[in-house]
């Protein structure tokens, strides 16, 4: 049973528009949620996170929203830039095992100039 799901394998948006990447989870014991960004032939890099006690966290062009009742989080990128084209992974950390993350399968974002 996959505990963290990213149901959209790919997303294509126009430069300057908003990109919205979605993630659903099933385990109510997750305490923290993180987004990572991955370019080809590189390792994932941390992008932004949110604690389960918050519903929004913003960092520049990136905002993560958490809806605990729906067990859903989303990453908003505004405005989208061609350099944002990458694979985005959602990850969740349970409060019982700090550091051990469960990852979604990723969404490939393509931002067209």
């Amino acid at each position, binding site marked *: 049973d996959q505990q*963290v799901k*990213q149901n959209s*394998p790919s997303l294509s948006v126009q430069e300057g528009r908003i990109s919205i990447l979605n993630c659903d989870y099933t385990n109510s014991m997750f305490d*923290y949620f*993180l987004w*990572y960004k991955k370019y080809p*032939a*590189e*390792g*994932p*890099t*941390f992008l932004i*996170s949110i*604690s389960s006690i918050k519903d929004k966290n913003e960092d520049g062009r990136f905002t993560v929203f958490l809806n605990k009742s729906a067990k859903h989080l989303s990453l908003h990128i505004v405005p989208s830039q061609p350099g944002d084209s990458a694979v985005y*992974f959602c990850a969740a*950390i349970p409060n019982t095992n*700090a*550091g*051990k*993350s469960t*990852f*979604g*399968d*990723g969404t490939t974002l393509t931002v067209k100039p």
Partner: protein
Amino acid sequence: NAGVTQTPKFRVLKTGQSMTLLCAQDMNHEYMYWYRQDPGMGLRLIHYSVGEGTTAKGEVPDGYNVSRLKKQNFLLGLESAAPSQTSVYFCASSYSVPGQEQPQHFGDGTRLSIL
């Protein structure tokens, strides 16, 4: 600032051969992890370590062994390579700070092919 370094970057093995993947981090992180990523899938945890001398099984540990003899190094071994172990392997490390999110820092991966 090297961060997390994985050696080698690429390797081709024959079925039944053994090899060791090396991961080194210079950030004094307590936790270290080994993942595999298969096409179209996310990162699956193979083994992890919460400190020097400790190891634990992750989601997909079969066919792999690990050792953490020094805090900065985490080794992943394949005793008898199988084609199903063809994958990209990522090592990661993180701090252990109870009550806070702990982003992991990743190496650039080792692409392993088993023929």
